[in-house]
């Protein structure tokens, strides 16, 4: 309809003057008008009518789903075919994850870094980590303690060996640090509650160790875990994974210094601090190794005699875990160099909201 009107206009305007030209122009105009229309796809967002728009969108989605499924089928078929023919299956593509596409961080620890080892030698945790002194932990709360706090603290007392709970009066934190120093503690942990839920953990190393302030979330107590186990009093094994950068390494050592360095393997207790995207997940399990038999029959098996390549049934050793103890996640808010001193202290690392702008950048 549009281009018809154009034609009329053109005709009307020019009248009889330059009729031939008109005709050519008209043809060009119409040709030009139809071509872009055919090339241009109609996006659902360009349709103003809601019903029609949603219908078109749904159809598009279904098309995409079908395509995806077809691709998957083709991929599987190709792999199967390749295996049957004895060739190499086409290489599996690696999915893109945030960990794969993490921004380059120059503070990532390298295994051949001399400076790192030298730093480890003379940092605050070295005496505990070299087993020269056993860790002794003082746990306390913030001034106003409430509902879930004591339960969490009692579970923490069971997880960390050689830890003691003292009630917080109205003492200043600095006084508490002094007191702990007198009594030869190696760390102080303060559980801070907000709105009747523990929501922050402050770990202060002593005598003048660093102060790490963590935000605590997703706390699940032992009684809320299904099929939980009961921890024994053997020294637990520590698993600290994925602390890559220098800061992460330091935090890892801080956590390590809370636990005695002589794990009792017979106790089969493992405490895990796993760092993923700057969130440190804490888990506490009892484990056991079992051998599992899994039958793996191949189509080739029937032809080949037993004793050659293919196995009729395989045996694997697997580890089974039973969760006991609390479960929570920590996120580092700030790391201060000396003991607790918000006003005059020197901060090694502070979290600022502007650090969150990139989804691929992590600091631990």
């Amino acid at each position, binding site marked *: 309809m549009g281009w018809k009107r154009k034609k009329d206009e053109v005709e009307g305007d020019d009248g009889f003057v330059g009729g031939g030209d008109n005709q050519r122009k008209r043809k060009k105009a119409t040709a030009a008008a139809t071509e872009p229309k055919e090339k241009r796809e109609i996006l659902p967002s360009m349709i103003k009518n809601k019903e029609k728009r949603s219908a078109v969108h749904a159809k598009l989605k279904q098309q995409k789903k079908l395509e995806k499924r077809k691709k998957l089928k083709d991929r599987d078929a190709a792999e199967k075919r390749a295996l049957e023919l004895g060739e190499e299956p086409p290489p599996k593509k690696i999915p893109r*994850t*945030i*960990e794969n596409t993490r921004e380059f961080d120059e503070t990532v620890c390298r295994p051949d870094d001399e400076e790192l080892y030298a730093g480890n030698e003379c940092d605050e945790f070295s005496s505990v980590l070299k087993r020269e002194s056993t860790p002794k932990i003082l746990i306390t709360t*913030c*001034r106003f303690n409430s509902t879930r706090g004591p339960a969490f603290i009692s579970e923490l007392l069971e997880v960390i060996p050689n830890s003691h709970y003292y009630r917080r009066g*109205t003492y*200043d*934190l600095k006084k508490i640090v002094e007191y702990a120093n007198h009594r030869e503690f190696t760390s102080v942990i303060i559980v801070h509650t907000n709105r009747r839920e523990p929501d922050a953990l402050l770990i202060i190393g002593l005598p003048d160790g660093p102060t790490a302030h963590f935000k605590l*979330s*997703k706390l699940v107590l032992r009684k809320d875990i299904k099929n939980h186990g009961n921890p024994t009093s053997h020294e637990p094994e520590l*698993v600290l*994974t*994925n602390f890559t950068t220098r800061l992460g390494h330091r935090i890892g050592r801080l956590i390590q210094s809370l636990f005695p360095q002589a794990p009792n*393997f*017979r106790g089969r207790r*493992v405490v*895990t601090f*796993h760092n*993923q*995207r*700057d*969130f440190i*997940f804490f*888990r506490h*399990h009892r*484990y056991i*190794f079992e*051998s599992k*038999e899994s039958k793996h029959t191949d189509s080739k098996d029937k032809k080949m*005699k*037993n*004793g050659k390549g293919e*196995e*009729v*049934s*395989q*045996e694997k*050793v*697997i*580890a*089974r*875990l039973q969760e006991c103890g609390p479960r929570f*996640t920590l*996120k580092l808010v700030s790391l201060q160099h000396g003991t607790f001193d918000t006003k005059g202290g020197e901060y090694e690392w502070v979290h600022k*909201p502007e650090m*969150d702008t990139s989804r691929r950048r992590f600091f631990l």
Partner: protein
Amino acid sequence: MQHDEVIWQVIRHNHCSYMAKITTGIFCRNEYNVTGICNRSSCPLANSRYATIRDHDGVFYLYMKSIERAHMPDKLWERVKLPRNYEKALEIIDKHLMYWPKFLVHKTKQRLTKMTQMRIRMRKLALKTREKIMTTPRKEKKREARREEKAEKAAVLEKNIEKELLERLRKGVYGDIYNYPVKEYEKVLEMDSLQAANEDEEEEPEIEYVEGYDGLEEELEDDIEDFGGLAMNRARAIGDNSEDEDGDEDEDDDAEADRKRGRKESSLALRKVEKGDAGSKPKKRAKVLVEVEHEDADERQTAVH
């Protein structure tokens, strides 16, 4: 004095910007008000003669207003500094407000008392450390929660922990505690594979014997010795390193108590012989029998091929 009544009528009934009406009462927000309540006698605007106490940086001043200066708003309020000492301040108030209405004097003294108490408390509090409440914008909290969820899913924790533990087992961190120390494990695997190979060859003649029940026990004993001896021999001679994992390894686990190889082999042999022997003595090693039969059936089939 002439205007006071008029001023009061106008203020009260029309509009006073210092008035604050709350559910519990009517208050006056004027800084010069002695009591703080909106009253005919407490309104500093509607009383030409008025006195009050005000505090500036921890020092108390007595302010007085009199009718003689009503036409000079700039110089309206006369200020007297009060000493720190509470009693002395009271005396000074008495002196200045000597012939003033009792109401005003009384209220001024009350205000002084209250303010001194507040001053003491504020000073005490300033010495103690107070927690400062920091707020985070809701958007950030939500963002953190979302990222945490995704991070938890990305970190398949159970798998990672299991992987780590198996790594440690493999490296030998645990020493000899577990029944599946890897090196011995693999050695046992090799041995079993060899034994299986040998047994395959010998199965065919055995098949004839196994069908009968009578002579079984005797043969059992015979075979045990044979196998036992053979097994020991084989153990010394380490043959192929074919990592043939048979189902025989189950028996390793079942016979956990027996760490000595000789006895292991013998028990293996026993079970081998009892293959087709579903009937007799099923209770002896019921569990084992069930497991073995499958594999043996397969093996037999392959052997027959």
